[in-house]
């Protein structure tokens, strides 16, 4: 497992200024509209942000410990239970890592169906986040129910979009949450051409709805925040990344996914049940997810999605985290379009799954969960059991960057009233669609109180 660095680099050391300056704290005890349990704690001294902690108090669940001794073939079903929002991501990374350990090569049909399955999860997860979790921040309402009173057609259409994503999961996976048709080597059963064709009409409507969503969110107003991120994404020469490719970064990294742990490490900080990932080279933070994919792989988007981005005035290189909502909507266009393409081309060939003789081996895989890279590595024994595994979910990779974003946003808006600043902090966190259940396999927001300015002892 991770080796902790004894002194994680502190960016606020230089901000520790003279005593006697007033401090205030902003605190949100239970972050809403995120998946899982987290809190925010921000402490300011005078006009300077002193400390920011995204606290993850979701209880630890010890997946990597109890996977030892289980059959490698059980990993897709067990790791799916890390997250109800993105079980497919866990199934895709675990199956492919184990296939590498076993030296297994899948068929083109299985490859295409895995891509289609992932499109379903992207549509379901992005539609949920854009419409139900993030859009309310931009419009000053508490939830999607209140949003439905202001924009009934947008909400109805968005729910149908989400439903179409779930429909793909149901047809290919058997059910929406924790699909049962995914196994090491492929699928238990291949869908018929007619079953996939039944998705075509709803997907055509979903693609129109995704285009309408890009126009709608493109009209929101965005705080003027630009961040100089190091971005990390999967990159594929011919397609927008989902399951395959190399790992690339804005700072010039280009490696095989098996080298992930040589370049990234997890450290354990006191305020979180989630491990924080950082770059080994300089201990720096990095960002995974829609912004990273769009900036590093945007040229691979279909023309329809590129045109939608241009029409929404989304820059080709986007460093405003608040505009991630537009990027997600653009990715919704991609996912619907790609699903339609895969369905049109589908001709089942070969067996539903390929089989390998058990052997000892080790393999790693990185795939694109909707909220960012999901890394898994397995070492398997000759008897088919798991000797060791490592799981690095997207939110533990983004946690440091989210804290850095909060520091930048609070510093910029430090004179705003507490309620407004707190809302802004929550919106800042939601920019990255954190999934806390994933991260504890491991969140909590507190901002010390502006109304109760007090002398620091």
């Amino acid at each position: 497992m991770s080796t902790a660095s004894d002194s994680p680099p502190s960016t606020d050391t230089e901000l520790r200024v003279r005593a006697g300056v007033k401090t205030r704290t902003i605190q949100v005890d239970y972050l809403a509209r995120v998946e899982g349990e987290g809190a925010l704690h921000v402490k300011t001294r005078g006009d300077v942000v002193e400390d920011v902690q995204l606290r993850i108090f979701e209880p630890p669940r010890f997946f990597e410990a109890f996977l030892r001794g289980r059959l490698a073939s059980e990993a897709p079903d067990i790791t799916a239970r890390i997250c109800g929002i993105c079980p497919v991501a866990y199934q895709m990374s675990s199956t492919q890592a184990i296939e590498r350990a076993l030296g297994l090569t899948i068929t083109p049909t299985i490859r295409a169906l895995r891509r289609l399955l992932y499109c379903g999860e992207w549509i379901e997860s992005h539609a949920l986040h854009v419409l139900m979790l993030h859009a309310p921040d931009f419009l000053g309402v508490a939830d999607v129910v209140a949003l439905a009173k202001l924009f009934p057609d947008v909400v109805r259409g968005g729910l149908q979009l989400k439903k179409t994503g779930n429909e793909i999961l149901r047809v290919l996976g058997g059910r929406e949450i924790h699909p049962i048709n995914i196994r090491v080597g492929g699928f238990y059963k291949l869908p018929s051409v007619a079953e996939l064709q039944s998705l075509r009409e709803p997907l055509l409507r979903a693609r129109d709805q995704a285009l309408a969503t890009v126009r709608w969110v493109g009209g929101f107003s965005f705080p003027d925040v630009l961040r100089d991120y190091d971005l990390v994404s999967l990159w594929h020469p011919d397609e927008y990344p989902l399951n395959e490719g190399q790992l690339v970064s804005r700072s010039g990294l280009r490696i095989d996914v098996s080298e992930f742990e040589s370049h990234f490490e997890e450290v354990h900080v006191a305020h979180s049940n989630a491990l924080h990932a950082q770059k080994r080279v300089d201990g720096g933070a990095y960002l995974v997810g829609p912004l990273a994919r769009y900036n590093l792989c945007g040229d691979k988007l279909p023309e329809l999605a590129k045109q939608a981005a241009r029409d929404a005035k989304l820059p080709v290189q986007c460093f405003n985290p608040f505009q991630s909502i537009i990027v997600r909507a653009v990715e919704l266009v991609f996912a619907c379009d790609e699903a339609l393409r895969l369905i049109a081309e589908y001709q089942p060939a070969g067996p539903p799954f390929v089989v390998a003789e058990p052997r000892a081996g080790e393999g790693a895989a990185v795939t694109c969960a909707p909220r960012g890279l999901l890394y898994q590595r397995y070492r398997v024994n000759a008897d088919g059991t798991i000797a060791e595994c490592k799981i690095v979910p997207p939110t533990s990779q983004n946690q440091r960057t989210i804290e850095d974003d909060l520091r930048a946003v609070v510093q910029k808006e430090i004179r705003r009233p507490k309620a407004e600043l707190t809302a802004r902090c929550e919106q800042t966190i939601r920019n990255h669609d954190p999934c806390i259940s994933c991260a504890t396999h491991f969140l909590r927001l507190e901002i010390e109180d502006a109304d109760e300015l007090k002398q620091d002892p």
Partner: protein
Amino acid sequence: MKGRVRPKLAVWKFASCDGCQLSLLDCEDELLQLAELVQFANFVEASSKVQRGPYAVSLVEGSITTAHDRERIQAVRADSAVVITIGACATSGGIQALRNGADVAEFTRHVYAHPEYISTLRDSTPISAHIKVDYELFGCPINKQQLVEVISAFLHGRKPRIYSHSVCVDCKLRGTPCLTVTRGIPCLGPVTHAGCEALCPSYGRGCFGCYGPKESSNPASLMQHLSTHLGQPDVALSRLLRSFTAEAPPFASARKPYEPAT
């Protein structure tokens, strides 16, 4: 609906994957209608507006794994007229109950560099081990249509129409040939609570017990059958019952004979 106060519904999360409460947001066709019948008074995953209790109905997802959560569930009970647990974690301790009986200190050291930062209980336990529960809805994940049925039953003061037969019966209703009999595939269908519509067998894989033991099932007898007639080794039988509802009492006791002595 005007002029009538809508009952307050609360959704609480303990150790879990969020999938069961997501089932409520996955009710794309029913969600807005449901919002006209109840107030989502405390549903943190979906809304930043939280209203104080008391609540007419509380849906509880997840198992109890920390001292803090052990206190929190008492407050939920005190503030709720009806408590309904949703999913395998809340009803049986869930997948994270695989730590029960294991060396949790070693587990913590294995996953976390600073075990001293982590506070956790030795066992993952179902909600019913801590408070009186009015209704338990099974599944990993739950069936969303069943969730809508249970909510509306409690809102109308009637008994939920949730059938209690086994997955095995659903296979017969679907016309799926028995995997154990025809193909020698181990299957928990005879002892598992229905609710998934016998999904896995229809895909050619044996049931692995997502919905937990049905009432008055006999998993010990099934294990014996799988051992004698299918030649399943002890370790396979133990694993079969050690998954998402491992600590549900019928499963926990039926796997004992097949587990290595500790």
